[in-house]
């Protein structure tokens, strides 16, 4: 019984991963800092508050949906539940506050194109010419 449940969960998660598109990490077009995946991870986990060039970084999360799970999984290397658990620990030990959350890919693009310090992520299919793509994964 347990085996069947586990198998079906594994199957479901495998299907959902392959069904989703790639995630694109985006910044303001004027942001010329050399940002790698490691820097993005440190910024989104609150371990660093600046871009590699020293300017302030303002990370933006999406509340829920495909792009968050993809981003957490591919860039942060952990499940959304694990990221939530990590931030709960930071919040309730006074060690940090999670990135601001917005509702949709469109809101992320809107914030990023208007703020030189912002960094966000969206479904790669939703990227517009108003923002600069750091990398897709």
């Amino acid at each position, binding site marked *: 019984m347990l085996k069947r449940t586990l198998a079906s969960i594994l199957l479901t998660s495998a299907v959902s991963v392959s069904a989703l598109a790639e995630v694109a990490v985006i910044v303001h077009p004027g942001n010329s800092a050399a940002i790698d995946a490691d820097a993005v991870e440190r910024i989104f986990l609150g371990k660093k508050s600046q871009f590699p060039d020293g300017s302030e970084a303002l990370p933006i999360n999406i509340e829920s949906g495909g792009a968050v799970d993809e981003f957490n999984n591919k860039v942060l290397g952990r*499940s959304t*539940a694990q990221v939530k658990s990590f931030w*709960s620990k930071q919040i*309730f*030990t006074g060690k940090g506050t999670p990135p601001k959350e917005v509702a949709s890919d469109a809101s992320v693009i809107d914030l990023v194109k208007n703020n030189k310090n912002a960094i966000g992520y969206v479904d790669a299919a939703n990227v517009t010419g108003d923002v600069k793509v750091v990398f897709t994964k």
Partner: protein
Amino acid sequence: MKANKFSLAVLLTASITASQAYAVDNVRINGFGNVVMGVTSSDDTFLGYDDNPDFSNESLFALQVSSDISDKLSATAQVLGRGSEDFDVNFEWAYLSYKLSDSLTLVAGRSRLPLFTYSSSLDVGYTYHWVTAPSVVYNVPFNNLDGVKLSKTGYAGGWDYMVDVAFGQFKGTTLGAENRGENTALISGQISNETFTFRSVYGRTTNTIDLANSEDATAQALGNGFDSLEAAGFVDLADSLRIEEDTGEFVGFSVMYDNFDYFIGAEHTEIKTTNTFANDDEAYYVTVGARFGKWTPALTYENFESSGDVKYTAQIAQIASSGLPPEAVAALSGLAIGSQQSQLSDYSIITASLRYDVTSGMAIKADISKRSDDVDDNQDATLARLAVNFVF
């Protein structure tokens, strides 16, 4: 414990800031809770449970309000109600936090004493895989510090490091009596990379436990017994046995490996109070688990030892040679020896636990623990628990 004036002032500051000077954006309200049901096998008692299902013993609810007063200054208050205290709400934390620089933070007020690895997030069941953190290490009577804490964080050579230095006082309850730690100083260091976390801590305190005024009959008898020893002229021995402005020390080490698919960790701690009847306590646990999607099964082995060695034998021998009536000699020596021997303790607990992440912010857990006592078979027990943890 009643909410003190300082805590109220901090919360008030936070709420005034919220309503007047700043937008609601600057106030963060978060909460967490654990609902835990536990029941032991028949006639056993363990961790406050017996063979009648209990829902309140380890359940708790908390709200945390935190507000940025400026770029560098923030105020945080956490109110928490425990089922074991009828959900009476207390200020668990109330502190001001000041960012001296990007990597240096000063905290003043009441906050969690950064004693052992999971101390600071002990109440937030959602943040770990157990129903509750291993009791041999984490059931200490003091968790919060009134004082200051300086935290330094950094990153070097692929490792994140964190050094906490804390100073202040704590208050708790041991054996029904007030347990006070004055001039408590603590330093802890932690380094971590993607998968490994190493931590060590050393702390010192000036400890006083007033047993004579305890609410517990046995503890009170012990406290009164030490007073009788003093009255009978054995002042030095009474001093040696009493926990009165004596130095307490905490030492801890831990190592954790977590690659997000599976994890293994261990922690070893020692607590000693010199020049008292209390013996040195030594505890450790090893935990191992794996993550299969939303499921996290784990196994944990815990061990606790306290020696029961009899100290101050030369001073105790003086009772026999004092010329007191034999009954008095027997009673006083018995007290001096028995108070120390009775702490002899050696037990282990093995726990199988399962966590299921229902949704982001909520987990349900089940565990079963078996306690094996090498000193007293009557303390052997089996406990089963179900828990719901949430954060928002």
